[in-house]
């Protein structure tokens, strides 16, 4: 082992270009180091998580009881729109890129990302993109209020701030595409000599597939919003029926992007959970190959199910049937994943540290979101579910106790490696239990509201919906406050924790990242590590 990791710390001091490394702000501004950039991404996404969360608090406060008490309906619509844009593009996606930056080079045994300067640029675009997006809230014409899907013709009624929204989306897209190119280049070219594709950790696999999805669909979104831009400001009629255009075409284009996009947010979550469950079960991942193939199948299917978001637009029967069958099929590879996680736990020797708790929470609650997704796939029943709170409950289950719980799990899992300190297990567990209780109080009642007929995106409602909205709001406020514990745990771990982490950190941990010291030195794997698969891997033992 010492031959693998050596002591990279000593290497870095005499490394040729680090005698004059900048410090302070310049270090972060000009950094090309994957760990620094990973940290920037993670801090940025956490800030966005709280900004987007504050908007959710405004929404839940207005919906606390019937009648309008706090905000005008137009501002309410700006909040729902911005909440989604910020959470999707500002919180969840950059957080996964942050994990990719930190972990992929260490997991494949590479010294850094393949394209370090581009890495810097792909991060530093984001603060400007989101400053521009958020600034629209302070403009005369207000922020975008047509929903994050930006459906025309309504989105074309946005005032001049619309141009800022479109350019912000373009910048986010450029950032994502550059990040993806970097990840693909790193994984394809910089793996340790013995690390074949089918020996890669699952997190690396899921990110590789995610990166291809991003490159495939971000340009589609860019095209769609550019057409909106020219319709709005240059009198084209791509989506204007009166000028020969087609408002439904936008929806097809948007969801051709939008459906793969939801898998972009969840596939890396599958990867993280597939790292954590074997570690704390002290047992190899069950069905490694099946996990890889299932991820690839889900990614492929994600391109041919987009119109299940559009069952009410009046598609021909044949189209509705195709998209219904294709959507139902996704349940199969997704089911394989859930069964494999449970089988990994089966007959293991489990312990329940915070990362494992969040991973188990993920499996249970993501499965609930997956099952409601199966219900939504039934096109005829969807004519009732569509655009109600049932849909809101569904996608929040897969995104909050889904993607966000996996992010929390990953953060607790790797925090000791990043900082060299153990976080407070007690406060981590308190964070988990409060989050789990309140996320369900927040979102489960929304299923009932949707079935009872409450449409989504409304600022006020009939009193018959009052009880469950009040529950949901209480859960929302409590869930929001609970996340402050997470910040506290991180700050304590980074600055104050006295418990030092070992190199391996977790007894059952396997993988190259656990062979380097904690905290991981600024530069790791200056020379490629020799892979000792029996010791360092979780899965795919039979293929060696």
């Amino acid at each position, binding site marked *: 082992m010492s031959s693998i990791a050596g002591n990279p710390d000593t290497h870095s001091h005499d490394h040729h270009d680090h005698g004059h490394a900048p410090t302070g702000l310049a270090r972060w501004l000009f950094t090309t180091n994957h760990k620094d950039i990973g940290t920037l991404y993670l801090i940025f996404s956490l800030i966005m998580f709280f900004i987007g969360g504050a908007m959710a608090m405004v929404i839940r406060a207005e919906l606390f009881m019937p009648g309008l008490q706090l905000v005008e309906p137009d501002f309410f619509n700006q909040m729902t729109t911005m909440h989604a844009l910020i959470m999707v593009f500002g919180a969840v996606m950059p957080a996964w890129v942050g994990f990719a930056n930190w972990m992929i080079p260490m997991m494949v045994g590479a010294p850094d990302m393949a394209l370090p300067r581009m890495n810097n640029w792909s991060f530093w675009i984001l603060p400007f993109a989101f400053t521009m997006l958020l600034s629209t809230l302070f403009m005369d014409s207000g922020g975008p209020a047509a929903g994050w899907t930006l459906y025309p013709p309504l989105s074309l009624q946005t005032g001049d701030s619309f141009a800022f929204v479109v350019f912000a989306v373009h910048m986010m897209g450029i950032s994502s595409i550059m990040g993806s190119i970097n990840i693909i280049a790193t994984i394809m070219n910089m793996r340790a000599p013995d690390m074949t594709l089918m020996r890669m950790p699952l997190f690396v696999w899921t990110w590789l597939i995610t990166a291809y999805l991003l490159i495939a669909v971000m340009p589609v979104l860019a095209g769609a919003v550019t057409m909106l831009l020219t319709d709005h400001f240059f009198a084209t009629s791509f989506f204007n029926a009166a000028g020969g255009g087609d408002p439904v075409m936008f929806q097809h284009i948007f969801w051709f992007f939008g459906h793969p996009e939801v898998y972009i947010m969840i596939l890396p979550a599958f990867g993280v959970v597939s790292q954590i469950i074997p570690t704390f079960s002290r047992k190899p991942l069950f069905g490694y190959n099946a996990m890889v193939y299932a991820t690839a199948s889900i990614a492929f299917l994600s391109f041919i199910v987009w119109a299940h978001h559009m069952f009410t637009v009046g598609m021909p*029967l044949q189209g509705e049937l195709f998209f219904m069958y294709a959507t139902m099929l996704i*349940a199969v590879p997704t089911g394989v994943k859930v069964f494999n996680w449970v089988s990994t736990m089966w007959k293991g020797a489990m312990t329940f540290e915070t990362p494992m708790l969040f991973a188990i929470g993920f*499996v249970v609650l993501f499965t609930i979101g997956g099952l409601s997704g199966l219900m939504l796939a039934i096109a005829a029943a969807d004519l009732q579910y569509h*655009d109600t709170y049932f849909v809101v409950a569904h996608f929040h289950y897969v995104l909050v106790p889904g993607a966000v719980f996996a992010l929390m799990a990953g953060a607790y899992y790797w925090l000791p490696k990043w900082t060299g300190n153990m976080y407070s297990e007690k406060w981590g567990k308190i964070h988990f239990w409060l989050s789990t209780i309140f996320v369900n109080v927040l979102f489960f009642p929304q299923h009932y509201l949707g079935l009872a007929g409450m449409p989504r995106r409304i600022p006020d409602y009939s009193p018959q919906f009052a009880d469950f909205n009040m529950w949901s709001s209480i859960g929302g406020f409590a869930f929001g406050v609970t996340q402050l514990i997470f910040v506290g745990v991180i700050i304590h771990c980074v600055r104050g924790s006295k418990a030092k982490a070992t190199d391996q950190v977790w007894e059952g941990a396997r993988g190259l990242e656990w062979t380097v010291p904690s905290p991981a030195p600024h530069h790791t794997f200056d020379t490629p590590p020799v892979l000792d698969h029996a010791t360092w891997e979780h899965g795919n033992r039979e293929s060696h």
Partner: protein
Amino acid sequence: MNKENSFIVAIAVLAAMCAAFWLLLAAPALTGNEINMPVGVTPQSVTHYELHMIILWICVVIGILVFTAMFTSIILHRKSRGQEPATFSHSTKAEIAWTVIPVLILVAMAVPATKALVVMEDPSGADMTVKITGYQWKWKYEYIDEDIEFVSSLKAESNAARQLNSGIDPTSVDNYLLDVDKPLVLPVGKKVKFLITADDVLHAWWVPDFGWKRDAIPGYINESWTIIEQPGTYRGQCAELCGKDHGFMPVVVVALPEDEYRQWVSEQRGEAIVAAAASEREWTLPELMEKGEQVYASQCATCHQADGQGLPPAFPALAGSAIATGSLKEHLEVVLKGREGTAMQAFEDTLTPSDIAAAVTYTRNAFGNETGDLVQPATIADATKG
């Protein structure tokens, strides 16, 4: 731990899972909210309810089985019980089983789901047709063959109560947000075909008791149908985000027995004759101002505000505005034809000439706009004909 004890743990977990799911499904009823998808009153709504319940039960059973396996493992296979980890990492038999069995379940589910969709998409053989047009933020209903058309928007009581800090308790308003000034009236037991479109942005027409919603899209005419099997009043809402008052454009349908429906139709014709006569006679300024104030409150005030100050810049003020105090011709042009790319719609499509004349006269003489201009309904009628 021996096999027998493990079995007991598994049974106990299964029982706990069943109890947990029962609690989740029964929670609405236990808290006094009878909440599930409505069975409804049309052939589609009954079918869609049944589909919903089948797929829900499939999901519940799958959920119980998966979570039972998982929590049994969590209880039994923990390090603190001295468990030694097993080393197996795959099982081809198990993996084939849990790929094939879900496929079979899905195929079985696809059969009723397909049948329901085939029925839903067949509007042929209709007894009557109603065209529905969505506007920001109201619905227009046209009875094809009957020469009846009218606009249906949020009832005044709800509209007053829903203003920010109105001070009116929503629970004191009957059918708060789910009531309209003039409901769609349909006969029971007839196959009604709907032609659904929109004039400005997307909307979606939805009555949960009918079992479906359908988008209203500018430039498209979507078809749908219903057969209402029981007389009654059925309430729903716009289901596609359509701007600031998306939450305030309800759908109300009153289903009447055939004979009462015919009677309602003949009353409508009488009202149409009265309205036509109103367009032809000369009106005085006080008459126009009185009617104009009502029309303004129901049609214009949501954007331009009751005091004419608007919500600039999206919704400009009318008090002292260049349009409302300037050339009458331009003013009429905007009101009749609308402004593309904004929420200002072509009111010639939804209001009668006397309504428009009254509203224009009102805005030219209220909020300090003392132009003294008076617009006769006949002028509007001529303008819209031309």
